[in-house]
């Protein structure tokens, strides 16, 4: 069976579980017995972790919750607006549809923004229109102190940990960060050998059946920032899709985060995750305990019964002030954004700043901090755009090349931003090559004597 299909019953099961929680209202009338149970969600799609069983207010934004029915469906991998009830081909590009989680509601023409939880008649006697929307998910927080990546199908997610010398452990999740059984997955771990693939070790099911593990021979008894352990997990999620590569760099042993006390927000099991608290920690595939509960209602999310606990606060201090010399290892997103909003006004100063950021991007990639790469890259593209505003100061013969180079750097930055999430070193390296070539061309255009 296709593993994507295998995951669907789990989604349905979680939705159904929600209907059976104590205190859940019995909204299921005879006419709607075939419908998924009613759920109450925040109006804003990205607040998807809020999934209540009764009306109320969104704990994040305070707006009234809206009634929806969580269901499974199928969608185009590249055209998510297309939602179908069954598997099949995408009508736009003929690719195979992928499973998604949707929220269904009904609406009437006179009040199109009103969410109605049931089909039926509108005030004018017409049938209520079914509206199907994709549910957001949004949690890339590692659950076991490892590095968290997303597969290219956007459905599977993988967390790799290195809990002790020579042991690599892979945890799998769906697109709601709900643990997946790895029993139909297969793969291996390949050690890095000076940038090339070295010895390979098979991934096998752990004793509890919940993870895949590889016993790696020949690794040192300790791991440090100076002597990191680099490896790639090559995972085959099903027979149809190609093996996918996830590159890991461990600078210390992964530590299971301690459990967090449950809070009082009622939740279903489907979007069962806490939001990442710090962008840096949430995004960075660091091997230390990574993400903290946010100082919002999201922090109140109780650990679902079947899922590991949310992660504890970060142990690293976030630099408070703006630092133009912040390095890739320390610059926070807020630092980067403050810097972006206070850019110097001259092309030479901007160029100098861009060179520093380019070095940071390079360093982050060298260090295997793929999830962190987006911070210096996003800053770089903002700097490059600012440099582009000075194009009229260049000799005319150089302007077209300079503008084209700025465009290439911006595009490469957005690619790095995405590929960092995928954790695929090859794609990151490709994008970085485009990025660094574009930077060299910008430097040649703006740095040369006028």
């Amino acid at each position, binding site marked *: 069976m296709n593993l994507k299909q295998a995951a669907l019953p789990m989604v349905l099961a979680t939705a159904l579980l929600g209907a059976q929680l104590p205190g859940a209202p019995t909204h299921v009338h005879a006419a709607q017995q075939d419908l998924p149970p009613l759920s109450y969600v925040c109006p*804003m*799609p*990205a607040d998807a972790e809020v999934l209540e069983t009764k009306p109320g207010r969104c704990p994040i*934004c305070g707006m009234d919750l809206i009634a929806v029915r969580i269901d499974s469906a199928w*969608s185009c*991998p*590249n*055209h*998510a*607006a*297309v939602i179908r009830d069954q598997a099949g*081909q995408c*009508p*736009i*590009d*003929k*690719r195979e549809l992928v499973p998604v*989680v949707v929220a269904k509601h009904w609406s009437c023409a006179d009040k199109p923004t009103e969410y109605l939880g049931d089909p039926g008649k509108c005030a004018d006697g017409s049938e209520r229109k079914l509206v199907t*929307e*994709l*549910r*957001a*998910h*949004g949690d*890339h927080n590692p659950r076991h102190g490892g590095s968290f990546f*997303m597969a290219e199908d*956007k459905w599977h*997610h993988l967390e790799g940990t290195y809990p002790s010398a020579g042991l690599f452990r892979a945890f799998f999740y769906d697109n709601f960060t709900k643990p997946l059984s790895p029993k139909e997955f297969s793969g291996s771990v390949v050690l890095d050998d000076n940038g090339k693939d070295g010895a390979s070790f098979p991934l096998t099911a752990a004793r509890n059946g919940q993870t895949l593990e590889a016993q790696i021979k020949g690794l040192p008894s300790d791991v440090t920032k100076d002597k990191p352990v680099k490896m790639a997990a090559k995972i085959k999620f099903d027979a149809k*899709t*190609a093996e*996918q590569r996830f590159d890991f760099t461990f600078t210390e042993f992964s530590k299971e985060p301690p459990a967090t006390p449950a809070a009082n927000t009622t939740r279903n099991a489907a979007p069962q995750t806490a*939001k*990442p*608290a*710090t*962008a840096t920690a*949430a*995004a960075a595939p660091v091997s230390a305990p990574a993400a*903290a509960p946010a*100082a919002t209602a999201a922090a109140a999310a109780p650990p679902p019964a079947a899922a590991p606990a949310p992660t504890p606060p970060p142990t690293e*201090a*976030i630099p408070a002030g703006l630092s133009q010399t912040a390095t890739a290892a320390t610059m926070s*997103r*807020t630092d980067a*954004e*403050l810097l972006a909003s206070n850019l110097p006004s001259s092309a030479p100063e901007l160029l100098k700043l861009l060179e520093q950021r380019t070095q940071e991007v390079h360093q982050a990639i060298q260090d295997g901090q793929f999830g962190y790469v*987006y911070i210096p890259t996003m800053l770089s*593209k903002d700097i490059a*755009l600012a440099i582009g505003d000075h194009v009229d100061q260049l000799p005319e013969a150089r302007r*077209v090349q300079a*503008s*084209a180079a700025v*465009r290439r750097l*911006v595009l490469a930055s*957005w*690619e790095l*931003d*995405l590929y960092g*999430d995928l954790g695929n070193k090859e*794609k990151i390296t490709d994008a970085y090559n485009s990025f660094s070539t574009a930077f060299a061309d910008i430097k040649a255009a703006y740095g040369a004597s006028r």
Partner: protein
Amino acid sequence: MARLANLRSSITRRHLAALAAGATVVLLVVLAAPTPEAHKMITSKYNYNDHVFPILRDRCARCHYQGGPTPMSLTTYQDALPWAESMREQLVGEKMPPWYADTTGPTVKGGHMLTTRELDIIVTWAAGGTPLGDLNAKLPAVPPPAPWKAGPPDLQVKMPEAHNVPVGTQEEDVNLTIPTGVSEQKWIKAVDLQPGDTSMVRDAVIGIENGPVLAAWVPGHDAIASPSGTAFKLPANAKLTLKIHYKKSWQDEQNAKSDQSIVGLYFTDAPLSGKSIESVEVKGPDTPSTTEAVSFTGALKSGARVLAVRPSFDQAYREATIDAVLPNGRRATLLKLRAPQPLWYRRYWLNEPIELPAGTKLEVKAMPAPLDEFGPPPTQKRYPLQVALDYVSP
């Protein structure tokens, strides 16, 4: 590249919420807070109403309007939102807008590119929570573009009868030969097409029977006139060939649709030379999709003043260059393309026509775009890999 709509995207450190109304407040609060650095509800400093809509209206609405030739309108927030991540993927992959002339190569006429800043604004918005902006703002409705953008044509040649694409058929190619009904020789400087059903006419190739290709038409087509003093000869009683590619919107798959398009011809005076624009084709290898660089060559048997280049691609490429190597060894680039796609076959009129002597060798080099895990989409291979030059003999 990014792929899914932001509603399901898992690039979610920037997609964590779409609290449109409270975005500004939240941002300020977050920015003001020293530590810890809480997550951003919305990371995009650009919103739809103020920043994204004007760009989409000015740059994209020639096709992406309600009822238009594309499966999605982008001219309202509700329309654009589900496609946000697709927009990001298309823009970062340089697939859209479908105008692939590289600005670092020879300049060409027409085009509808986004500036780099405009591109960044849309991608930032798509990746950063897709904020709406002022909830009470009322954006103006974007009307569909007027028919015959170049003005009423001198001659309208209508398909003799409507073509029906039945229920269950989503895509179809139709080849027609249509009499012009013109009994005297004419000279054509530009050609356009007015679809009968805009929503399913995906592209069209219009030519003269046993003669040159007059237009490679795609939605948003600009009927660019051939350079002054040049034209396509339309012999007396000539027939037009019309190859139309129908593709219904995904929402219309189960609807029968009918089309009766009209070809518009714009006439001009006879060129002093009396010579028509002709075409020569250089065919590339017919191979399965590849990730290896592709190159192929051809030679001009006679001299030519090259006016335009019509490249067609069998798969997505990262870049392509079409060079002319003159008999004396001198090399001149005719056209550079970035990220050309297998769809959107079109003609690029050169701003400055180039004279090539007989014996000139044409060299085409193309670097395929990397495949994603899904491989090449099955719909890709519509056209062969080839380069056609439109020229007049000296």
